[in-house]
């Protein structure tokens, strides 16, 4: 009798938990659904019938406006170029530097690694002013490279890779060396395949951080054609008002690529994030 009761209670608790989790999931998706629906309503309809959520007259005018009034494809291209180059570069620089700090003995190793660690603690928001001045001084202002070159090295990435590479037994590298493998070959053939999970995690973080960066492009780029996608949303704000329909269409379009990438690689994303928490 008691066991039946407790089984019932357990069942009830499970149902409550599932319902709760579902409600949270709905709350997460809801604003994006609103965005999508609003992007198909004209601005006048939004203002006149604010009580409605579902469009009365479906319109793609907002999307047409985004594509015709704004260089949307150029922004997309800029975002891809910046994010792609930064992600690839960071993967390379982090793994190879992590490899060196994990497996090599050399002078000043500890001092150099301390510099990496210390620079990890300096967030870019703190150094936005001097970073801007340095980029400007180097003549990179208003060039896509202004967002690429300073981001080629990530101290977090180096730190993460070093942690993982340290776990690889030294004997693996040593024996390859005895077999006459060059250092770069060891890195490429032995180290990289072993730390695939770390590479995945780092790729996820770098991709998200760069693709979604708002402050960097806001400060470093000036011309409209050089802008990246996150800046696109303020494009339809005039001095005194906002074109809500065009803004929501732009928001949907900005959201689209990253959502597709996320859904395609959702497991890698979740695994990558979990990994950094454990390490």
């Amino acid at each position: 009798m008691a066991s039946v009761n407790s089984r019932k209670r357990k069942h009830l608790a499970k149902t409550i938990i599932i319902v709760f989790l579902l409600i949270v999931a709905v709350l997460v998706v809801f604003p994006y659904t609103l965005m999508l629906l609003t992007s198909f309503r004209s601005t006048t309809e939004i203002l006149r019938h604010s009580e409605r959520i579902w469009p009365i007259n479906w319109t793609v005018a907002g999307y047409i406006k985004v594509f015709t009034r704004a260089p949307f494809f150029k922004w997309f291209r800029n975002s891809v170029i910046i994010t792609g180059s930064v992600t690839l570069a960071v993967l390379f620089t982090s793994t190879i530097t992590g490899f060196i700090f994990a497996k090599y003995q050399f002078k000043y190793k500890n001092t150099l690694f301390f510099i990496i660690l210390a620079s990890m603690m300096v967030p870019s928001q703190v150094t936005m002013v001097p970073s801007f001045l340095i980029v400007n001084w180097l003549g990179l202002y208003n060039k896509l490279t202004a967002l690429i070159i300073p981001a080629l090295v990530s101290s977090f990435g180096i730190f993460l890779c070093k942690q993982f590479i340290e776990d690889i037994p030294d004997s693996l590298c040593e024996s390859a060396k005895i077999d006459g493998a060059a250092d770069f070959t060891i890195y490429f053939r032995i180290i990289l395949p072993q730390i695939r999970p770390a590479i995945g995690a780092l790729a996820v973080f770098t991709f998200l951080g760069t693709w979604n960066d708002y402050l960097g492009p806001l400060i470093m780029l000036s011309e409209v054609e050089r802008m990246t996608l996150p800046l696109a949303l303020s494009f339809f704000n005039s001095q005194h008002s906002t074109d809500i329909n065009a803004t929501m269409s732009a928001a949907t379009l900005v959201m689209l690529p990253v959502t597709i990438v996320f859904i395609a690689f959702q497991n890698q994303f979740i695994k990558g994030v979990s990994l950094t928490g454990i390490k």
Partner: protein
Amino acid sequence: MKSRIFSIILAMVVLIGVLAGCGGRAGDNTDKSADTSSGGDKKEKVEIKYWAHQNEGWNKSHKELAEKFMKVNPDITVLTEFFPYDDFESKIQTSLMSKTGGADIYELWGGWGVDFSPTGALAKVPDKFVEEFKKDYFAPTLGSFEHDGAYYGVPLEFNIEVGGLLVNKKLFDEKGLSYPKTWDEMLKIADQTSVKDGAVMVMRGFDFVTYDNVTYTWLSMLMSKGASYFNEDGTFNFTSPEAVDAMTQLVSYVVDKGYTNLDALTGGGGGEGHYFLYEDQAMMVARGPWVISEGIEMYGLQQGVDFDYIAMPWYGDKIAFPAETGWGLVVAESSQNKDAAWKFIEFVMEPENLVPHLQMCGMLPPRQSIIDNTDYKERMPHVVPLLDILKHGEYIGHFNTDVFKEAINNMFVELCTTNNYPTIKDGLAALEEKLNNELILGK
């Protein structure tokens, strides 16, 4: 797994390569034209960049000006580019710093001129303009472009945020009301028509709450009573009986009478009062004449049918108001093509070009001779009531007007929504002290 990751990376490399390739080609184009301009073999083709802020009607006019100019000057190409207003000032600042990533000509708001003129980042205005300035231009239009006897910008307009009242003709007709001739009549209409639903206005009877208009309405009210907001030593005086009275009135219009609310200053409300007027949710809105073009361009409304723009009554019995330097054109000191840039500006300032531009932007002329220009009056009959008062405008003062207006707006919001100050006068005294420290004594 391994091959999958590899193929993803490969795909990314290819994608970037392709995209960068397209970009490279586009970049090459501009490089080539730059090459020919510096190399200058046969025909010297000069390219100048002209940056302005986004506004549909205005941008159309900027582009037309550039095209007209290029027809007359085939050796000069003018590239226009428009920026969201909110980001524009910092873009001007950072691009001027960069010396290479910026424009040759900027459309610069006069209020920002106070900061930019003394830096040496802007080119001095050539003498031939200066002669005209002295003969023909109104003092407030030049004020903030001047530094140490030299000028750094050419004013496009007389900026005026008082004296004009946007009225919803349709609603006035429906309710059988006639336009107000005195301040009291204006308040009476506002009393009859304002409707509120919680924090939201259903109908704004009389709206004056915007970034610019609180300051200008307040200062012109006290000035029209014969007072000044300056002491003789040049410091601010916000605590005269007239200043306190005027602020008390404005606060009561929001708090007690509910003619309008603070949304346009505090955000979240979806726009400024004149948009509500164009959507038939406001009766009267105090605003500069530039609002007209927005009603026509953005809302497709007709002046004289849907709305009118009339002379706003004065609070006191004197016509007096402050004016800050409005939009003007400046040339970057680092520009490689200053001559071409000034040539373009000279072209813009010719009455036959400037008058249509002023019309498109709903702006008032910076110079007396255009006021007397019959073409202008014919094109813009609705601003005629304003033209006569321009000569009463006084330069607002040589300080950063954004800091000035923001402080006044913050104090206004505080007085309307909190009990931080026992009386209005206490609040104004605090404001006076703050602004004296920041704008006058700190210098």
